[in-house]
């Protein structure tokens, strides 16, 4: 079981917003692990990373593979790819939307992740619990 936490962020109007943050590792094309902190987004179909993080992972833009996906702020050009993701000790291949713009937050979405982990948001306690499903 892994217990992630909410991060409190302060707006310029001094309002507090709390957001759920995970610690995950993505495997680069040179086989090194990059540790980063995406927001956990149960409303996101798929994990998404911004342009420059994809470049750090070694991804190259193939214009024939660019697609548009929808978000609350409009369409985002992405390339769908796959890479290994590690959460705690669990390492697995996952689908990934590589956004070709920088102005998107890194998101940990449901595809693959929520199939492997039971994810429970306990906002009152400011924690998000990831429990691995037992294999059948």
């Amino acid at each position, binding site marked *: 079981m892994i217990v992630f936490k909410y991060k409190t962020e302060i707006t310029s109007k001094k309002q507090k917003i709390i957001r759920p943050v995970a610690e995950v590792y993505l495997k680069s094309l040179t086989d090194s692990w990059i540790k980063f902190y995406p927001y956990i987004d149960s409303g996101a179909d*798929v994990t998404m990373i911004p342009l420059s993080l994809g470049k750090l992972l070694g991804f190259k833009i193939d214009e024939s593979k660019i697609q548009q996906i929808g978000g*609350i702020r409009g369409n985002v050009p992405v390339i769908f790819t796959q890479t290994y993701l590690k959460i705690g000790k669990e390492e697995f291949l996952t689908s990934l939307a590589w956004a070709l713009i920088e102005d998107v937050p890194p998101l940990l979405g449901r595809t693959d992740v929520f199939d492997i982990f039971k994810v429970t948001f306990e906002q009152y306690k400011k924690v998000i619990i990831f429990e691995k499903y037992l294999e059948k």
Partner: protein
Amino acid sequence: MRQGKLLSTNYEFFIKADTSRYKGEWIAIARNKIVAHGQDAEDVYKKAVKKAGDKDVSLAKVPHEQMLILKLFL
């Protein structure tokens, strides 16, 4: 709840840190402090590795204030 060593001290630092001055930027954390920041994850990561080595660098993107993601659909 027991965490063992599943989460790094950088993570705990990030959760508690006031990152408001870095809105819209990438930050790299190593040994419980912010060691690099900027607009490009690759540049920030490489600067951080130069300073701290590659064993203990974590990346985070500090969101703009109004970030609100309700859903992302395929």
